[in-house]
């Protein structure tokens, strides 16, 4: 079977407003197997989010190739879910309309889409909130809406860009556990971008460490912790701590490099 996602020698440059060229990613190689949960960690500004933009087809690479299930990415691929870092639920739609949006855009009738949406709203634990508008929900609940919105389309690939970074610690670990249980019922490959190593290890099968920008894969780690996992408790597992220490040694250098640069930039 073809790999789910493959990035080969990918470089991404942006034009800065002042006319310069900013290289976000440099010669990046990355492979994700079908059904695999991968986390991408790295210091601030190393191009983690850019990677997701390339896989989704929202942004084309400057050099290199991006393949999804063996097909080169041209424009936005179908079968893809994307959870954004900031709130991207539609503020003028109710919870029900928000979740039903995907199926409707893909040609399902209003009525069918609503039935399907109700089911997903129940699955993410928002039953009874169908008619609320996003402003009437808490941050955690809005994330649940976004999760249902992404999963309802039955994506083969789910891209997540620090989706829980704005949540408080308790809500966050609840959402993480819930994400894992929802994901285990699908066969989706996940690319989960985060700057939080603990989150990366507790969720994923493999962790990619990116270098300080321009980002490229520095090293890859396999996380051989048993599933199903309880995110709130797995961090006490001795193996978890071992893996954490191993990856952190690697990541620390990059974080320091990035920090030094920021200090110099600010000075």
């Amino acid at each position, binding site marked *: 079977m073809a790999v789910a996602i493959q990035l080969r020698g990918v470089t991404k440059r942006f034009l800065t407003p002042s006319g310069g060229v900013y290289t976000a990613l440099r010669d990046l190689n990355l492979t994700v197997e079908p059904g695999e949960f991968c986390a991408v960690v790295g210091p601030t500004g190393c191009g983690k989010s850019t990677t997701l933009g390339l896989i989704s087809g*929202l942004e084309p690479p400057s050099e290199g190739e991006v393949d999804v299930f063996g097909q080169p990415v041209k424009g936005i691929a179908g079968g893809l*879910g994307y959870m*954004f870092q900031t709130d*991207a639920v*539609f*503020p*003028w739609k109710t919870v029900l309309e928000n979740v039903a949006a*995907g199926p409707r*855009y893909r040609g399902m009738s209003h009525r069918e889409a609503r039935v399907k949406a109700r089911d997903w709203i129940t699955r993410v634990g928002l039953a009874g909130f169908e008619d609320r508008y996003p402003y009437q929900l808490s941050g955690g609940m809005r994330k649940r809406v976004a999760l249902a919105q992404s999963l309802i*389309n039955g994506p083969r690939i789910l891209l997540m860009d620090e989706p829980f970074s704005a949540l408080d610690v308790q809500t966050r670990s609840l959402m993480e556990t819930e994400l894992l249980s929802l994901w285990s019922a699908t066969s989706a490959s996940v690319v989960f971008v985060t700057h939080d190593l603990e989150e990366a290890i507790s969720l994923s099968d493999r962790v990619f460490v990116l270098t300080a920008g321009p980002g490229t894969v520095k090293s890859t780690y396999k996380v051989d912790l048993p599933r199903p996992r309880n995110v709130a408790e797995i961090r006490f597992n001795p193996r978890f701590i071992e893996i954490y220490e191993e990856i952190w040694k690697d990541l620390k250098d990059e974080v320091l490099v990035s920090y030094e640069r920021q200090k110099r930039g600010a000075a």
Partner: protein
Amino acid sequence: MSVRSAARLNLAANAPAEQAGRPASDLATGRRQQARRRRLAVYGLRLLLGVAIVVGWELGARAGVIDKFFWSQPSDIAATLWRWVTEGTDLGPLSDQVLVTMEETVGGFFVGSIFGVIFGVVLGSNRLLSDVLSPYIKGANAIPRVVVGALFAVSLGLDIKSKIATASVLVFFVVFFNAFQGVREVDRNLVANARILGANTRQLTTEIVIPSALSWIVASLHTSFGLALVGAVVGELFGAYQGVGELIYESKNLFDTSGVFAGMALLAAIALVAEALISELEKRLITWRPPVATETRI
């Protein structure tokens, strides 16, 4: 800020005190009473200010401090209004004058708003078109637009058409710029999300771009209804058979300042009623926003 939101803010500010010893229901009742007292005080002071101005004006005019001939006096203005209501104006029944002006205003408001929204959305989503047209639009916007009233009075005649045209030109630019800005300011994340979810260009426009621009557009309707009224009245001043503006013009020609003031009072009443209607419309159109945000106007 409206009285209601002031009361609400007041409640919110005191909320942490809820944790104190007294039972919550007690505190809530106390707070409600406090809010009601405040509301009454504001209404009372408003009334007092209005009475003070009217009485001061009347007494000033009677004592000769204020020249009645130029500045009239409240009792004369009220008498003029009363005469218009009971006996009709020189131009016919008062209701006809008010209705004509309303018709012109509402007509101009709708025509201008519809064109403003269409042009705003189209130009907002088409960068080439907006780049090509922008110097012309900026130029047209720089002209004091009430002067087109003169042009329309000649080209469209002295009846209702020329007033609607004048009013709609004034309305158009305000709504246009807001719709344009609204479309430009659409959250990139929302667009990306909709595209990922599978929205096509038409769905992006109707479900993301327009709803997002709607709060800008609706906000502009408050200003633009006022401008529609300005357009209608200015149109009437350039030449008309009927309307409140024409009534003011006639009164001016007769050196009847009471008539001018009476006309102004009528226009103020029309504007206030319209403002209330638009606020209601706003509430209906934009249900998805937290209610407090819509009440930050005066």
